[in-house]
């Protein structure tokens, strides 16, 4: 089984990566600013919707319904798409998907492909597989282009280059696009990207896309975007390959009426994003004459099987949870070591890997619930985070010091007598450290607290001591 999520299995622990990023003032500044802007925009267009909560509820219920009947809807999609001239392939895992796609590209004798944003392709490391087969992939999303040229990694679901500011981007373009001069304004940078990519759009015969929604009823595929590179990729080349996770299915065309309202508002804070492309199979004289869908499992059926965590698959990849998350705000996406970062990444990444890797991600959260509040399909992320923490512990993968400490704490909290004994021990133990009721420093692992904050010393009299004394005095 070669199920993997990019390089997440080799990524450092969240705490380790986060420590470094928390110290990177440029990243923190960029991320804080960018997420602040988008949160304001989202709030404005959501607040004007009187039926926002109803849309969220429907969005949630539709997805839950699809997952309950996923076998039916996948088959329905396959039948409809095939009838319209498309070809549907099935890939059990990342390697199988790569083999299929590389084979399809090779069958065209193509040495280049243009790609429109698809995180799923990062998940399966498609670009690496293409390059190994002598095929050059060109990313056409501006942010993905920035990341690709910068030989970097994406740090956000919707705005992958959020961790870069304009000067950094300008430098990347100057270096990699062979330009002698380039303005500093975002318009100049976007203009450079337009020219660089345009000739590829008009020439390269094979494109690879993902999909936001795959409609079972009609066999249609929908791509939601802003820049126009999606339209370019799905309608100009001769051959189109769409890599689609099996959870992207929605039952009917009608259901778009929910998601096309909630996705743009949640993702980019717009009432509607500039372009949506919807197509079904192959259309004579218009667009690709060969259309392939690669349906991808790569661990999704595992998530499906866990009833408590199944709604992880409801995700429509809007990124609102990343923008709302106070943890993400301090670290950016790279801390999660996965193409899927932020709150959704913290639950999706380890689950796709059968909880064997990325085990620190479910702990990368203070459980504040801001993500759940903004999720357009009402995924209860905090609940699932706790559920996954329990899985990590049950597997025996919790750090042994923590297990010992939690066992000891459970013993202490078992009875008032144990609590009192521990309290007395604490009162004695704190003597060297407590001054005027404040502890400034504790040794060893306990310095995780005192390294940053003071701690109140344990008062002489506990509440129950005081109560017991008062009861005694009253009885007299």
């Amino acid at each position, binding site marked *: 089984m070669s199920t993997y999520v990019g390089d997440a299995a080799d990524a450092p622990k969240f705490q380790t990566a986060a420590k470094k990023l928390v110290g990177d003032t440029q990243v923190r500044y960029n991320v804080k600013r960018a997420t602040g802007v988008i949160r304001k925009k989202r709030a404005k267009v959501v607040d004007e919707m009187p039926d926002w909560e109803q849309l969220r509820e429907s969005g949630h219920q539709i997805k839950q*319904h699809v997952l309950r009947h996923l076998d039916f809807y996948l088959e329905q999609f396959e039948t409809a798409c095939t009838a319209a001239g498309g070809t549907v392939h099935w890939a059990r895992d990342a390697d199988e998907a790569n083999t299929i796609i590389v084979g399809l590209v090779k069958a065209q004798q193509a040495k280049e492909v243009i790609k429109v944003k698809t995180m799923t392709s990062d998940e399966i490391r498609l670009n690496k597989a293409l390059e190994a087969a002598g095929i050059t992939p060109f990313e056409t999303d501006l942010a993905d282009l920035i990341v690709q040229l910068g030989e970097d990694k994406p740090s956000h679901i919707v705005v992958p280059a959020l961790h870069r500011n304009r000067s950094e981007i300008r430098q990347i373009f100057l270096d990699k696009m062979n330009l002698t001069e380039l303005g500093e304004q975002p318009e100049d940078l976007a203009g450079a990207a337009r020219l660089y*990519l345009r000739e590829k759009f008009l020439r390269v015969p094979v494109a690879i896309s993902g999909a936001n929604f795959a409609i079972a009823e009609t066999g249609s595929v929908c791509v939601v975007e*802003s*820049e126009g590179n999606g339209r370019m990729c799905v*309608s100009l080349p001769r051959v189109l390959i769409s890599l689609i996770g099996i959870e992207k299915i929605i039952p009917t065309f009608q259901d778009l009426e929910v998601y096309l309202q909630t996705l743009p508002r949640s993702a980019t804070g717009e009432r509607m994003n*500039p372009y949506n*492309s919807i197509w*079904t199979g192959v259309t004579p004289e218009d*667009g690709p004459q060969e259309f392939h869908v690669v349906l991808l499992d790569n661990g999704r*059926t595992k998530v499906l099987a866990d009833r408590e965590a199944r709604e992880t698959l409801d995700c429509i990849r809007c990124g609102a949870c990343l923008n709302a998350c106070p943890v993400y705000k301090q670290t950016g996406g790279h801390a999660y070591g996965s193409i899927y970062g932020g709150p959704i990444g913290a639950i999706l990444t380890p689950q796709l890997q059968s909880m064997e890797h990325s085990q620190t991600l479910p702990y990368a959260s203070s459980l504040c619930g801001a993500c759940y509040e903004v999720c357009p399909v009402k995924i209860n992320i905090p609940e699932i985070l706790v559920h996954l923490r329990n899985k990590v512990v049950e597997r025996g993968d919790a750090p042994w010091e923590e297990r010992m400490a939690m066992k000891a704490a459970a013993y202490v909290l078992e009875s008032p007598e144990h609590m009192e004994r521990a309290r007395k021990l604490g009162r004695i133990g704190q003597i060297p450290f407590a001054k005027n009721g404040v502890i400034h420093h504790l040794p060893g692992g306990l310095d995780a607290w005192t390294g940053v904050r003071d701690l109140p010393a344990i008062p002489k009299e506990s509440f129950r001591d005081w109560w017991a004394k008062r009861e005694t005095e009253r009885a007299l």
Partner: protein
Amino acid sequence: MSSARNEILERIRDATGGTTPGREADYAAVPRNYVRQGSLSQEAKLELLVDRLHDYGATVFHARDGEVDSAVAAALRSRGKVSLLIPRDLPRAWMPDGFHFFREGTSYQEVDLSEGVLTDCALAIASTGSIVLRHSAGAARRALTLIPDYHLCVIFAAQVVETVPEGIEQMKAFAGVPITTIAGPSATADIEMIRVKGVHGPRTLDVILVA
């Protein structure tokens, strides 16, 4: 291939128990308490659409029925253009004298060299300022509305709905052909979250609203 298909379907059935005869009822039971029908008057609806179009930088030319060609001429003059590509079935009556209209050629490079394109639309959604293009035979194929830098689009008042659900309801009827929805010229906010207009796709969008 089919063994992958069978295995995935089997995994799904193991995970969920598989689909049941109650599926349709289950689907029908999904609550849909969001707004579906609009409530604005025709006038207010058109005003809203114009407002949204202006919001994303489209210029709106107003025309009465039968005067589409004059509006086309006005738009072209305002942009300093003398020619446009057109789809096969564009009404002759829309094309004013003194300008050139070319039925599109077949190469992308030809389309790239054009001054712009003139099309109709399938419908428009006022609440979001969306224009819906239906790429069926005779109407503009996708490349035609994508490659040129200028898009002039004719919308009739009767084609305007208020809400997204109303729009989708109409789109259902032609769901089998390629559909493009447009809500503004292409844009990106990938650079410091600052919105920049015009990456790919037509950078200028003009609308003729026929009421």
